[in-house]
């Protein structure tokens, strides 16, 4: 009969509509009003088990970011020395697809020989394509991909050319946002130190 298909479609829509209220009710029974928008509920709502509305109330609510999430690079500052781990080897600048990393290698003022540290280090984040190659290929774990995606600025020129100071973040921050990676690095560094002692 003509029209049955439309009724079938509408039943699907109706089912979805009812489901959102069922979901609300479920959260209400678990913890009253607002439970659905609590940090406990968010991962469940957004998982394959979620049955209700998918909308996240940004910026009040934020999706948890997975560890591998990547936006722009940052420089890891070693707490022992207070300096960047970077040795100015230039691998990141070479592997960078849009060529947005600019490094000036430091030189010893007395001998004029190049030193293993950057004098200047820039990332033009207006050009950066967030591919993560710099962090992936850095042999010294000195450059990592950040989770901070709220970087809007009022001016286009200048504000997005980040220098070493703007890029620097403490090691503890890296350990916080990349716990698995950090553990793996620490074990590898420990093993290397042991090998060097022998």
């Amino acid at each position: 009969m003509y029209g049955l298909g439309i009724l079938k479609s509408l039943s699907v829509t109706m089912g979805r509509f009812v489901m959102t209220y069922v979901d609300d009710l479920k959260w209400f029974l678990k913890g009253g009003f607002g439970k659905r928008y609590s940090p406990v509920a968010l991962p469940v709502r957004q998982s394959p088990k979620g049955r209700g509305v998918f909308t996240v109330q940004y910026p009040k609510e934020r999706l948890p970011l997975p560890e591998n999430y990547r936006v722009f690079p940052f420089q890891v500052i070693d707490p022992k020395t207070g300096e960047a781990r970077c040795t100015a080897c230039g691998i990141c600048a070479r592997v960078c697809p849009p060529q947005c990393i600019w490094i000036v290698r430091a030189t010893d003022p007395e001998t004029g020989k190049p030193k293993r540290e950057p004098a200047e280090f820039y990332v033009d984040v207006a050009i950066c394509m967030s591919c993560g190659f710099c962090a992936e290929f850095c042999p010294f774990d000195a450059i990592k991909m950040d989770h901070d995606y709220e970087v809007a600025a009022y001016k286009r020129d200048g504000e997005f050319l980040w220098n070493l100071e703007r890029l620097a973040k403490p090691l503890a921050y890296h350990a916080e946002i990349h716990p698995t990676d950090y553990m793996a690095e620490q074990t590898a560094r420990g093993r290397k130190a042991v090998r060097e002692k022998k």
Partner: protein
Amino acid sequence: MAEEIQISPPTAELLSILEERFPGAAQPAECEGVVIAPDRLVEIATFLRDEPGYVYLSCVTGVDYPGPTARFPARFEAVHHLFRFQGGSLTLHVHADRDDPVVPSLVSVWPSANVQEREAWDMMGIRFEAHPDLRRILLWEGFAGHPLRKDWQEPYYEADHKPFPSRYPMGRPVPAEERTLLGRNLQYPPDWSPAGWKLQAEVPVYAPMDERAAEGGRPMHTDQVVINVGPQHLSAHSALGIVACLDGETIQRLEPVLGYLHRSHEKIGERNTWLANMPFTDRLDYMCSMSNNFGYAVAVEKLLGVEVPERAEYIRVIMAELTRVMNHLISIGFFTNDIGVYLTAMLYALEERELIIDLFEMASGSRMMCNYFRFGGVARDLPEGFLPLAKELVYERLPRRVDELERFLMDNEVFRARSIGVGVLPADVAVAYGCTGPLLRASGVPYDIRRAEPYSIYDEFDWDVAVRDGGDIYARFAVRFEEIRQSLRILRQALERLPDGPIQAGKKQPIVKVPAGEVYGRVESPKGELGFYLVSDGGPNPYRYHIRTPSFVNLGVIGELCRGHLVADVAPILASIDIAVGEVDR
């Protein structure tokens, strides 16, 4: 180039047949395939199509060799990739003079050559003789030069190859605003003056339409109207222009106007290092970055000759099939948007897609621009928590949601009225126009590269090629639904059997050197055949980097599909082809 000319047995056999039929017209090529004398090309192509059964012209492009080498003088090469449905490929090279490159057009043999030869003319400046409509396709009429020639330099030109020496060790940044846009590249034609200049770029677009409109001979005197749809239009899916010539409300002639999203992907690709192209491929079809990665990785691995570890292969297949599910969901969702259901059904589809890109984000770090594949493996292993989520999605949620979506659409009278019998594509036309993917399979041709020429480990899974006979919009969506189910079937097997082990062959290198040679690697991306034609000169950068994208070639048939239909059918037909303009314009 290889020292010794290696001829594969099928090519040798074919060469002897060609030598018999067309003495002296075919020689073995340096790397792969055969070199055809230009004056016999059309004859030989017709023969190859009709007798050995190379019915499918996949890719047409050109390669520029600006300087004479030890082995050959300066020249252009036009490269044609042919395939047979029963398996087997063939590469035809045609050499042309560097100063005045002319190659016979194959449009009379394969209509699919039309758009691709126009692209080669636009980008390389190879003139295809007897092409019915040799105009620029991606750039505008009046553009100076042909950008993919090796001696053409772009604005802000810095060096031929990345990495640029200005970045390290004395990398003081120069903002783009402070540099001259064209630098040394700025030049005007000798007789050009800004005073008397008029923009001519649109004349070639409208002239054929006006001609058509001026044709008389209709029983009643009615005017024909030329209308523009896009480039900013809701249903054009992105910046795609469409020019249609109407008689009343019936479409007489329709042509897509491309290039609004052209961003010289191939030129950038030839400046880049091999690995640096990987994140750029994400931006081709921005919905299916994993499949694009896959295509590029497969092509480069053919040149490198690396064996991918088993776990990496499984991960790749999981990602590629999730992408297929996701792409088809988007395609179905946006189609309902185009026929006027607005956002309801689209958001049902996008919800599931959201869950899939959550998985991509977990594994690769980015939702859409995944950049997950590496030569010989994948970027990183699957994180903890990926498999349970993926299994929940693949076993529990997606099958139910896909059934629900199908229930929502396929019996709906409105959906059926807008899709059955609209935009019918007969099988022979589909093949002649080089259509691939669901578009071809909905016309009753069971051709899927995963089956016809299995790459990666697709031959280890148990699955069927989805195919329908109708050839109309309805059949295309029926194929997509079926393909989602088949992908879920592959996913279930892959998730079940995912082995342990390394995810990368050898050590990951930041700068990869690829042995000299040429290769055409292709994969079945969700939209159709995605091919990468790569030429390496042995250095760290590709010498030639050409992408045959499914959207671009499939879009070439839209004029045929729309003829005789109403304006209101253009949007559904376009949505049923399923294009991503990022991939069309590159």
